[in-house]
């Protein structure tokens, strides 16, 4: 496999000014910890651990939701399809051998469930070209949510974004930098530890503390949104 290069993003917004990324020194190893963790959780689910499967559900429900929203617009229908897809995946988990990534397998189940749903409603599923299929398989590109938005949902999303961005700006430099390198630049802990010149345990702790601080600010807003949505 070719070594991956760091993709330039708008991460400098959150980076501390004196320690920006130097791409020339970086070479990211093509590791996929996501897949290793998923395989571990799948194996546990295959042995009867439903809690392990619940982690996979939490991890992928939003990504699957975004995927299905490309084919179906109605929110309640999307939720039903996502739920059916996970139930089908659970029923078939004993047959999953890890030849493909768990998400790729799940996405195929999701697409088929959505197609069957559309056919049952007398609608013709949209034919997809190979580029679109490839894009859908790469869940990192699934950032867009194609559901009909209401003024209230748009306002809530904006409030959440403002709160998160405000909380990030108020973080101590080392926490802000650690979480930005992780979330925006997509670096693994080892790479962040090299860049920030600190042990991996410190990176882990900084990212956790950054998240907890932001989540604390977000809590009242999330509770309000839960009541409204």
């Amino acid at each position: 496999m070719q070594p991956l290069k760091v993709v330039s993003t708008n991460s400098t917004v959150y980076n501390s000014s004196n320690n920006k990324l130097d791409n020339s020194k970086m070479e990211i190893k093509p590791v996929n910890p996501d897949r290793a963790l998923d395989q571990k959780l799948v194996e546990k689910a295959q042995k009867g651990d439903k809690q392990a499967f619940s982690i996979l559900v939490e991890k992928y429900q939003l990504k699957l939701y975004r995927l299905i929203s490309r084919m179906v617009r109605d929110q309640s229908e999307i939720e039903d399809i996502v739920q059916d897809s996970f139930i089908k995946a659970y029923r078939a988990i004993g047959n999953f051998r890890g030849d493909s990534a768990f998400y790729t397998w799940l996405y195929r189940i999701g697409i088929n469930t959505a197609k069957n749903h559309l056919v049952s409603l007398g609608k013709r599923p949209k034919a997809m070209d190979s580029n679109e299929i490839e894009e859908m398989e790469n869940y990192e590109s699934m950032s867009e949510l194609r559901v009909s938005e209401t003024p209230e949902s748009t306002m809530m999303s904006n409030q959440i974004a403002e709160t998160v961005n405000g909380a990030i700006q108020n973080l101590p430099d080392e926490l802000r930098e650690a979480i930005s390198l992780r979330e925006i630049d997509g670096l693994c802990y080892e790479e962040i530890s090299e860049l920030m010149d600190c042990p991996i345990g410190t990176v882990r702790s900084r990212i956790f503390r950054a998240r907890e601080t932001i989540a604390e600010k977000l809590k009242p807003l999330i509770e309000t949104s839960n009541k409204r949505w």
Partner: protein
Amino acid sequence: MNEKISSLFDSEINNKEVDTLLSKKNKMAGVRSSMSDYQIISDVMKKNTVLPKNNLTDKIMSAIDKEPTQMGGLTKVNSSNTATISFDMWPVLASLAVLVVIASTAFNIEVNSTSQSQLLAKEDIPQEIISAHHAATANNMNHFVQVGDSAQ
């Protein structure tokens, strides 16, 4: 605990830590809730469309809890759907087992007493020889008691 959840969210967690997290079954709702918060933060930072916190995972898991448990390709049916034997039934079952053992032993004795070899022997050997043999054979307790007494 929460630091482990953060690492789990990033897939930067080792197998032992996964086992530890999953062993705390009563705290799994908290694990999922924290992961959901982290997802919102992640979406905002990546400028993804933010989907407010939902309870979809709870709905899905509620449906999956009704499904039979997967056991390495086999399916273990939920206990609510199967006939189970309570502890109260064990004495009855034990008595039944003893009866079966006794009955099968008795049946074996019966079969042995009329075995083919014994029938052939009875036909071939004259009756007076069999009677003489029986008379000479120690076949009751008195014989052994007497032998024991004389030995003393």
